[in-house]
């Protein structure tokens, strides 16, 4: 069997049992990266460092030393997160020479768990975008259909897992940047509870919303990776339940929205039926302020980006090198947080965020989780001209969850015209393993 077809958990067991070496796994990933290079998932590859680390992992296993749950497993990291000795470009020409002198905290945790970092993944510039076409290093091409986008901003991270170039990847999610590309690429994308994964060493977009999370092939792999990077402790030994009997699932009442593609709506309906068929009770959930969430999100994220980006992009030369979407969001952010707009728009958005969050929290008082589509559509054609104001609605289901700071996972379920559809499962704060259990049940019925 081609070892790139193993899941992360399968590979971890195979390495621990000495059936596969870490070196073989790393070499298999780089062979796969070269074979599918046109997908453009990586900005920087760390091949020599990865082979060196793999040899050390193999030595440790051969000696019988205790090893971590990700020992020898090749993992990719989004290029807005520092890996010591590698560039952190944020896919921007403005930072093309920035080399990290220390590991981000999440990378330190991955390495402590034994993971091998194989490279830095492509993304939308400064995580601003939902297609991965806003990259100074070129667009990524979807591994399922290379005429389609991967989604974004963690497009390279989602797509390298879909293309079997890595067993798992780290992404960041501000308003859907892990979940939406996971949906477009047919993989599992976990956005944890806000603050539960340390963001030290990450170049953020909007700190009140930013989260670091995982992209994996299935929910068991997500549990293993999340357990290794979360502040709450180790991921080893966690077994996801997946039993839906006695569980109550809230179904967000939003299917009348005309932006929702019929194929996505159909897949969502099938997901609901599938959960009911294995014992879940479903109830209708109304979130009255849901429609305002995407607007609130864009006011707050643009305002924060315009403020915090100044820390990283200082010189006139760097500012000239910024792409169009970044400039658009900086100007938007300044506009909504200056003059009379500060109270009319920015302060209003802060209050609206509280209302939206309280509606979600109230809904989750009566449910174990709430589900809705991850995105209203599937991956569009690369290069298709979509107005920014329309593209922003790609995150219309993901952004409200970010505003509320809740954990959510996108799980592939069904297809629309041959392209994968993601179902978003939203949980209470710190309920990551519970929503991954529901995701596991759903994935088993795909």
């Amino acid at each position, binding site marked *: 069997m081609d070892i790139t077809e193993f899941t992360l958990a399968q590979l971890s067991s195979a390495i621990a049992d000495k059936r596969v070496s870490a070196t073989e796994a790393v070499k298999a990933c780089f062979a796969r990266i070269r074979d599918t290079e046109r997908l453009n998932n990586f900005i920087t590859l760390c091949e020599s460092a990865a082979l060196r680390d793999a040899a050390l992992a193999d030595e440790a296993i051969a000696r019988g030393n205790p090893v971590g749950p990700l020992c020898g497993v090749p993992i990719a990291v989004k290029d807005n997160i520092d890996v010591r000795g590698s560039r952190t470009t944020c896919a921007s020409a403005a930072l093309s020479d920035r080399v990290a002198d220390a590991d981000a905290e999440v990378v330190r945790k991955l390495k402590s768990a034994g993971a091998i970092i194989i490279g830095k993944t492509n993304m939308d510039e400064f995580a601003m975008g939902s297609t991965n076409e806003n990259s100074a290093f070129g667009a990524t091409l979807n591994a399922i259909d290379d005429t389609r986008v991967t989604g974004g901003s963690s497009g390279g991270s989602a797509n390298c897992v879909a293309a079997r170039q890595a067993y798992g990847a780290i992404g960041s999610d501000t308003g859907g940047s892990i979940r939406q590309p996971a949906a477009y690429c047919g993989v599992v994308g976990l956005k944890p509870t806000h603050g539960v994964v340390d963001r030290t060493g990450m170049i953020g977009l909007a700190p009140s919303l930013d989260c670091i999370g995982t992209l994996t092939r299935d929910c068991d792999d997500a549990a293993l990776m999340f357990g290794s990077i979360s502040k709450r402790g180790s991921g080893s030994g966690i077994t996801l339940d997946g039993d839906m009997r006695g569980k109550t699932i809230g179904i967000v009442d939003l299917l009348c929205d005309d932006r929702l593609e019929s194929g996505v709506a159909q897949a969502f309906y099938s997901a609901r039926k599938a959960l009911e068929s294995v014992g879940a009770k479903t109830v209708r959930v109304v979130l009255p302020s849901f429609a305002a969430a995407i607007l609130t999100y864009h006011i707050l994220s643009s305002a924060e980006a315009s403020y915090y980006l100044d820390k990283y992009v200082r010189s006139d030369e760097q500012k000239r090198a910024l792409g169009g979407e970044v400039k658009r969001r*900086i*100007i938007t952010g300044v506009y909504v947080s*200056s003059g009379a707009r500060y109270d009319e728009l920015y302060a209003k958005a802060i209050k609206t965020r509280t209302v939206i969050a309280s509606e979600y929290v109230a809904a989750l008082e009566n449910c174990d989780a709430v589900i809705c589509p991850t995105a209203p559509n599937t991956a569009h054609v690369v290069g298709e001209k979509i107005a920014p104001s329309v593209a922003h609605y790609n995150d219309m289901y993901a952004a409200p969850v970010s505003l509320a700071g809740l954990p959510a996972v996108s799980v592939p379920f069904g297809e629309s015209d041959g392209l994968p559809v993601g179902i978003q499962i939203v949980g209470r704060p710190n309920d990551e393993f519970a929503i991954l259990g529901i995701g596991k049940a759903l994935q088993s019925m795909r």
Partner: protein
Amino acid sequence: MCKITIDDIKVAEKLARLELNDDERNEIRTHLERQVADFAALNDIDTDGVLSDLGRAGDALPRAEER
């Protein structure tokens, strides 16, 4: 619809310490005008009595003029 002028964009450029060319300025003006019109929908949300963002009012950003 809210009217946004090129001068409004130039003011924002100064506050952001960012210089746009004429094409960028026009494109952003059009985009921002549409987006700000959409933002008016927030007025439908009743926020009377809502004091802070999840209890973290101290996290609010300074005004762009004060940065």
